[in-house]
């Protein structure tokens, strides 16, 4: 095992003689964390809305003002009828139509009940769902307001009897991410993404590059132990990954004031276990590839699967059962969840130990495979 020192020394010399890699290790996390948290967000804002107001009454005016005042909506147009509003939607100029009937005021005053029609463009499902939810919330608020006003105009006796009617309100309290800030949710995910790209792709290209240059032959005729060879490939990426993680943690703190509410030690330890698994995975790809082209194609393909099924963008709990099965062996989904728990829920090392163990088993399996798939004799 003494020879592993010589092999690791060689890997580091080669890495730092590469004109690109050392710069990438520093710049990549900073650039990704600087740009993407702003752009990649599920927040639905600035929904364009057309209001068809047939009554043009006091109440309808108040409702429209209330919608326009919301940060979620932009009042795009007030067309005379539903047909022209629909025309706007079909042209993609507006996302949502609210139609207020001519009898709106009268219905409210006389029947104490009125209806508003809402049509949402649901091509983008998230926007459709959230948009209609927001509208419903605004309309509900508006009707509560009206009810309060009307109750106040009644004689005291009647008012008391109305007040005694039970009413249930839901008042959500947003725990762990009180501002509902998507950035806080996405940044831990971007950290996992960075580690996956750097510590997954570089090892995948590493051994295959030795195959292309022929140096692997010179190594294969030596008595070098397969485990030592694979470990010597793994350890440098381990250290590189740790550096990337530390840079990411500080970048997130400096740019967004985001610091783990749980244990920072737990963040680093889970990152370290994850890096081992993803680098092992890269080495397997490298062992099975004959050319750089094959290796890069394969690693891109698999990393895409790991990310899309890894719960960074869409919750794993909402996926079909086969995808959840993949998530159960996907180190990406373990680290995404772990980091979110530590960053947002304040989890400690003990809280995430189950996931750490799972990741460690995956790492052991993948690296065992990497050793076995490295063949010194063809």
């Amino acid at each position: 095992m003494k020879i592993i020192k010589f092999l690791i020394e060689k890997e580091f010399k080669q890495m730092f003689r590469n004109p690109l890699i050392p710069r990438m290790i520093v710049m990549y996390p900073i650039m990704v964390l600087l740009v993407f948290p702003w752009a990649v967000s599920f927040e639905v804002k600035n929904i364009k809305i057309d209001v068809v107001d047939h009554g043009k009454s006091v109440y309808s005016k108040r409702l429209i003002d209330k919608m326009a005042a919301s940060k979620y909506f932009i009042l795009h147009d007030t067309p005379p009828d539903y047909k022209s509003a629909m025309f706007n939607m079909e042209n993609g100029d507006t996302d949502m139509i609210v139609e207020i009937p001519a009898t709106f005021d009268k219905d409210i005053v006389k029947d104490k009940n009125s209806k508003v029609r809402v049509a949402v463009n649901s091509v983008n499902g998230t926007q459709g769902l959230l948009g209609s939810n927001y509208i419903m919330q605004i309309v509900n608020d508006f009707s509560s307001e009206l009810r309060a006003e009307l109750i106040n105009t009644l004689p005291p006796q009647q008012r008391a009897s109305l007040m005694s009617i039970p009413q249930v309100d839901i008042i959500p309290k947003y725990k762990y991410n009180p501002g509902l800030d998507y950035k806080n949710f996405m940044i831990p995910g971007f950290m996992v993404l960075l580690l996956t790209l750097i510590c997954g792709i570089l090892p995948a290209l590493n051994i295959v590059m030795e195959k292309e240059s022929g140096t692997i032959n010179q190594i294969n005729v030596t008595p070098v132990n397969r485990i030592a060879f694979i470990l010597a490939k793994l350890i440098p990426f381990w250290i590189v990954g740790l550096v990337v993680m530390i840079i990411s943690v500080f970048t997130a703190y400096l740019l967004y004031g985001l610091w783990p509410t749980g244990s920072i030690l737990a963040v680093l330890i889970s990152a370290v276990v994850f890096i081992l698994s993803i680098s092992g995975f890269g080495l397997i790809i490298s062992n099975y590839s004959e050319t750089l082209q094959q290796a890069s194609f394969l690693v891109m393909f698999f990393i895409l699967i790991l990310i899309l099924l890894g719960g960074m963008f869409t919750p794993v709990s909402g996926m079909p059962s086969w995808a959840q099965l993949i998530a159960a062996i996907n180190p990406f989904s373990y680290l995404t969840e772990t980091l979110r728990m530590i960053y947002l829920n304040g989890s400690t090392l003990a809280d995430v130990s189950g996931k750490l163990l799972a990741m460690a088993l995956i790492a052991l399996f993948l690296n065992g495979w990497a050793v076995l798939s490295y063949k010194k004799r063809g």
Partner: protein
Amino acid sequence: MRKKVIEVSNLTKKFGNFTAVDHITFDVDEGEIFGFLGANGAGKTTAMQMLCGISMPTAGEGRVAGYDIIKENELIKRNIGYMSQKFSLYEDLKVWENIRLFGGIYGLSEKEIADKTDELLKRLDFEQERDTLVKYLPLGWKQKLAFSVAIFHEPKIVFLDEPTGGVDPAMRRQFWEMIYDAADRGITVFVTTHYMDEAEYCNRVSIMVDGHIEALDSPAALRQQFNTDSMDEVFRKLARKAERF
């Protein structure tokens, strides 16, 4: 009777339907310079890779440096050096770093590596190139370095696959002096070449045609057998029989 360091019988390697090496049988004595000749594609490199334990034979058996080539290939590797046809030291490492790496892999200590590196660079008159990246060396120097690295750990046998391909005549001469030097120190040399003048430098040569060994003897005996006065002519007479390529 001299000790045999390489003994193989019926060694065969097939790639699908193609038989690269077809039942070859030969042996090499300790301390010998053994020339392994053959046209391009005759199967020399494949045969050599089987002997070095980096290619699995399809059939046949053999022993190299006293170890079985099928089962004990990792033990063989402790006792051999190998220089491949394609230059395969690390181009992005410096001269001393390549020497240090392979010295370390063969289990030499820091002290041994440092002393032997100094001595080697002095002997090659290479001291001013110690810190040069290997990719900046001219081909002849690369080959000398590759050979020196291959025998740095004092193996019993060194395998050289076309070590002088593309090298100028003066440098080839120097290279063969290094080979003789190694042989004098007791290292068995197994070498392939396309230069028939180099074949004359060998104690014995074998000539491979289409995966078979067609002739095996000392250069003088072969010339006599084929009734000619040059190895060139011997080679041409045999290679003419080739049907492959």
